[in-house]
C-alpha cells in the first residue's frame, strides 16, 4: 500500500483517532459486502443446508451449482435474461447515438435553433409530464407489449445530455478550426475529432444508460405481458413478492421457488453490474463532475 506523504505542518494522528477511523471504514465496507456474500453463499448452498440453517447460509459447506442449473434449463429466467441483455444493448446504443448527436449540435455555437431547443430540453427537467399521460401516450401509439416501450419513452436523459454537452464544449476551439480547414464536415468532425477525445465521458454516459436499462422493471410491469418480462421484473415477482415460479416449458405454476434459486436469480441480476463496474469506475468522478459543474 502506498501512503501519500503527510504535509509537514500536519500533526501526527493520535492512535485513538486512527482506530476510530479504521473502524468506521471497515463498517462501511462490511455493510456493503456482507449482504452480497450472504446472497452468493446461499445461492451456492444445497437446499437442505439452507433449510437446516433457517433461510440463509454465510459459507456453504459443500458448494453446488444446482440452483444455477435449474435456472438455465431454458425456463422463464433464461428468457428474461435474454430480454434484459437485448434491451440493455440495443437501448444503450440507440440512447448514446441520439444523445451524442443532440449534445454535439447543442454544444456548437451558432447552430440553427440551438438556443430554443436547449431551453425546450431543460424545461422537461423542471416539469416532467407525469405517469398517467405518459402511459396513455404509449398506449395510444400502439407500443403496448412491444420491447420498444422499454426504450423509446426514456431514449434521451437530460442529465446525460448535459454531461456530454459540457464535455464537448470543453474541447479546445482550435481543434474544431483545424478540422474545418482540412475540409471536414460536421459528421466528420464529430466522428474523427470529438468522439475520440470524449472516451471518458462516453464511457460514463454509456454506463449510466446501460445500468438504467438493466435495472428497469417498472415500465416492463406497465407495458409488457409476463412472458416478455426482463430479469428485474421476474426478480420482483418471484423474490420480492414471493410468487410461485412458473415453468415456461410446461406452463404449470410450481410452488414458491426454493431460497437457493431465488438467490441465484438475484446473483444473475447483479453480476453484469459488478463486471462492468471496475472498468468504468475510474471515469466516474471526472465524468460526473464535468456535468455537475457545467450545469
Amino acid at each position, binding site marked *: 500500500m502506498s501512503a501519500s506523504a503527510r504535509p509537514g505542518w500536519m500533526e501526527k494522528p493520535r492512535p485513538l483517532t486512527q482506530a476510530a477511523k479504521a473502524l468506521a471504514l471497515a463498517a462501511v465496507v462490511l455493510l456493503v459486502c456482507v449482504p452480497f456474500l*450472504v446472497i452468493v453463499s446461499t445461492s451456492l448452498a444445497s437446499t437442505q443446508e439452507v433449510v437446516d440453517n433457517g433461510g440463509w447460509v454465510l459459507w456453504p459447506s459443500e458448494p453446488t451449482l444446482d440452483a444455477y442449473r435449474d435456472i438455465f434449463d431454458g425456463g422463464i429466467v433464461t428468457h428474461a435474461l435474454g430480454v434484459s441483455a437485448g434491451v440493455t444493448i440495443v437501448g444503450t446504443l440507440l440512447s448514446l447515438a441520439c444523445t451524442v448527436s443532440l449534445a454535439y449540435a447543442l454544444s456548437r455555437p451558432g447552430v440553427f435553433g440551438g438556443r430554443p431547443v436547449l431551453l425546450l430540453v431543460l424545461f422537461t427537467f423542471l416539469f416532467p409530464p407525469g405517469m398517467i399521460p405518459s402511459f396513455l401516450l404509449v398506449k395510444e401509439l400502439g407500443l403496448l407489449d412491444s420491447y420498444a416501450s422499454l426504450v423509446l419513452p426514456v431514449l434521451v436523459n437530460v442529465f446525460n445530455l448535459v454531461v456530454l454537452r459540457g464535455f464537448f464544449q470543453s474541447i479546445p476551439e482550435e481543434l474544431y478550426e483545424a478540422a474545418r480547414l482540412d475540409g471536414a464536415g460536421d459528421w466528420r468532425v464529430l466522428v474523427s475529432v470529438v468522439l475520440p477525445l470524449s472516451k471518458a465521458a462516453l464511457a460514463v454516459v454509456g454506463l449510466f444508460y446501460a445500468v438504467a436499462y438493466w435495472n428497469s422493471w417498472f415500465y416492463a410491469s406497465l407495458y409488457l405481458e409476463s412472458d416478455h418480462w426482463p430479469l428485474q*421484473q421476474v426478480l420482483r415477482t418471484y423474490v420480492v413478492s414471493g410468487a410461485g415460479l412458473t415453468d415456461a416449458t410446461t406452463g404449470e405454476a410450481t410452488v414458491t421457488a426454493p431460497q437457493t434459486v431465488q438467490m441465484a436469480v438475484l446473483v444473475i441480476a447483479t453480476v453484469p453490474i459488478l463486471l462492468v463496474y471496475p472498468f468504468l469506475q475510474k471515469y466516474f468522478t471526472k465524468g460526473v463532475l464535468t456535468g455537475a459543474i457545467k450545469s
Partner: protein
Amino acid sequence: MLPGVAYFLLFHYGALAGNVIAFKEYVPFDGLWGSPWVGPGNFQRMFEDAAFWDSVLNTLWIAVLQLVFYFPVPLGLALLLHTLTWSSVRRFVQSVAYLPHFISWVIVVALFQQVLGDTGLLNSGLSGAGLHTVDIIGNPDAFEPLVVAQVIWKDAGWGTIIFLAALAQVDEQQYEAAAIDGAGPWRRFWHVTLPAIRPVIVLLIIMRLGDILSVGFEQMLLQRDAVGPQTAEVIDTFVYYQGIVGGDYGFAAAAGLFKGVVGALLVYAANKVAHRLGEQGVYK
C-alpha cells in the same frame, strides 16, 4: 439533432399535452382526445379525498426524515475519506461505497429482506442466541426507519462524490497557514473546511427541498404491499394505484398534475432563495 428533438417533442411535450386528461373523464373507447370534458371535477374530488391527503402527508414526512437522517451521512463519509492519507485505502473504500448506487431497487429491497426479514440474517442470529426475533420487514412502525436506512445504504457513498470534489478544491495553503497560526485539527475543520464547502451543502439542501414531493417511487411501490397504504402511500404510488391499477385515469392524472405544478414551483422558489443567499443555485 433531429432524432433527439423528435424524442423530446413526442415523449415529453406530447405526454405533457396529455395532461388535459386531468380535466376529462377517460373513456378507453374514445381515446385521449375524444373523451368528454368534466372541467375541474377531478380536482374537486381529489381535494376532498382523505386518501390523497394521507399520501401527501406521508410524502412530506418521509422526505423530512430523509433530509434529517440521510443528508448528513454522505457529508460525514466524505469528510472521513478526505482525511485519509493512504490513497489506495481511500480509493478502495470509495469504490465499495459507490457500488450500491448501481444496484436496482428490486435487488436492494430483496437484500434487505434477506438480512432483516423473518428468516433473515439478523433474526436467525437472534433466535440462535436465544433472543426474541424482531419484525422489521412488514411492520408499519418500522417502515420509516427502514426506507431511510435503504436510501443511506444505496446512495450515501455515491453522494460523497460532490462533497469530495468540493473538499479537493480547498487551498492547501489555507490549512498550512492555519496550522502555523496554531489551529488544531478541529479549529482547522471549523474555520477552513466548513466555510469552503458551505455553498455545496446549501445547494444540495435546496435541491432536496425543491424535490420534496418525489420520494423513491420504486422503493415505495416495491414495499407498499408489505406494510399497507396507510404507511407507504406517497403521491406517486397514489397516482399509480388510482390510475394504472384502478383505471381512474382522469383522477390520477389530476393528482399527478398537482404534484408536477407544486414541484416545479418549489424548485423555482428554492432557486430564488439560493440566489438571495448569494449562492449559485441550480440554474440562473
